[in-house]
């Protein structure tokens, strides 16, 4: 009789909703503040936000970020102000997704978004370059580098509101 009583518990659970998430087909939605892969952002006019200051690399506890800056000119402008990031690399296998780079960035150029499916068969593939990290310009907007009028984009850090 005890075995039947045990089986009754099993039978009771059969019609209930299944708890397993069928992962590759279905995904559990991430929380809003979840930190996944980094994205380099652009302004609405298509210029890059990153000014190559390397503050993210200095803040990184795992030394996962490598930034090399170069000078902007009005003939070849990537970002407002004097400099832009010529090389921007993040080693995804070093990165611990803490978000300190996000906090350190003066122009809010780097944002940790929700993509998290990062697995590699080769360690070299884990190094994400600038072309892989940067978001494409908004639709209809010209990308970078571009030629601009002299004297327009002199300020590297935009006017920003104080945090509330």
């Amino acid at each position, binding site marked *: 009789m005890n075995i039947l009583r045990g089986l009754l518990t099993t039978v009771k659970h059969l019609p209930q909703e299944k708890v*397993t*998430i069928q992962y590759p087909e279905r995904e559990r939605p991430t929380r809003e503040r979840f930190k996944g892969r980094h994205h380099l952002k652009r302004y609405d006019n298509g210029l890059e936000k990153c000014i190559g200051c390397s503050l993210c690399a200095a803040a990184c506890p795992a030394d996962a970020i490598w930034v090399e800056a170069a000078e902007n000119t009005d003939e070849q402008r990537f970002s407002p102000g004097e400099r832009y990031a010529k090389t921007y690399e993040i080693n995804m296998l070093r990165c611990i997704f803490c978000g300190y780079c996000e906090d350190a960035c003066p122009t809010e150029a780097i944002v940790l978004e929700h993509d998290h499916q990062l697995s590699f068969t080769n360690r070299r593939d884990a190094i994400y370059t600038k072309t892989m990290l940067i978001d494409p310009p908004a639709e209809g907007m010209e990308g970078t580098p571009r030629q601009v009028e002299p004297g327009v984009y002199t300020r590297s850090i935009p006017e920003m509101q104080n945090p509330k």
Partner: protein
Amino acid sequence: MGVTSKLGNLGVVTTTLEAAINWGRTNSMWPMLFGLACCAIEMMSSQASSYDASRFGMELMRPSPRQSDLMIVAGRVTRKMAPVLRQLYDQMPSPKWVVSMGDCASCGGIFNNYAIVQGVDEIVPVDVYVAGCPPRPEQLIHGLMTLHEKIKSERIVDWAK
């Protein structure tokens, strides 16, 4: 070499055999319990009911290396643990695979110091690296999917080596 020369011209037969064996290998892959740190908690979670790795034939974690095909190195490996890891890997029967789960196992992560091995690929051949600190169970399963794809692309010629 012998296998290649004997089976080289049997195109249809060997591709079907490859597909069948690779299917068998991917769908009954028992992982070895090798939790070393916080990644082990996520590894347990990927085995539990929400994510349920047994959907992919990973029915149970084997504590014995003799009964396992896949070593999931979950966590930072200290220099003192390194010989143990190598010995357990050597005790696993072929064919065997290694997944390096998380930043610490893959390249030392934030522990860039004398006590931690800077990546388990210094001691064992790693097939898949999973990024994350620690990776979500979904990320680990994504890594296992990457490994499945890698195994499915293996050719009979490579087994002979």
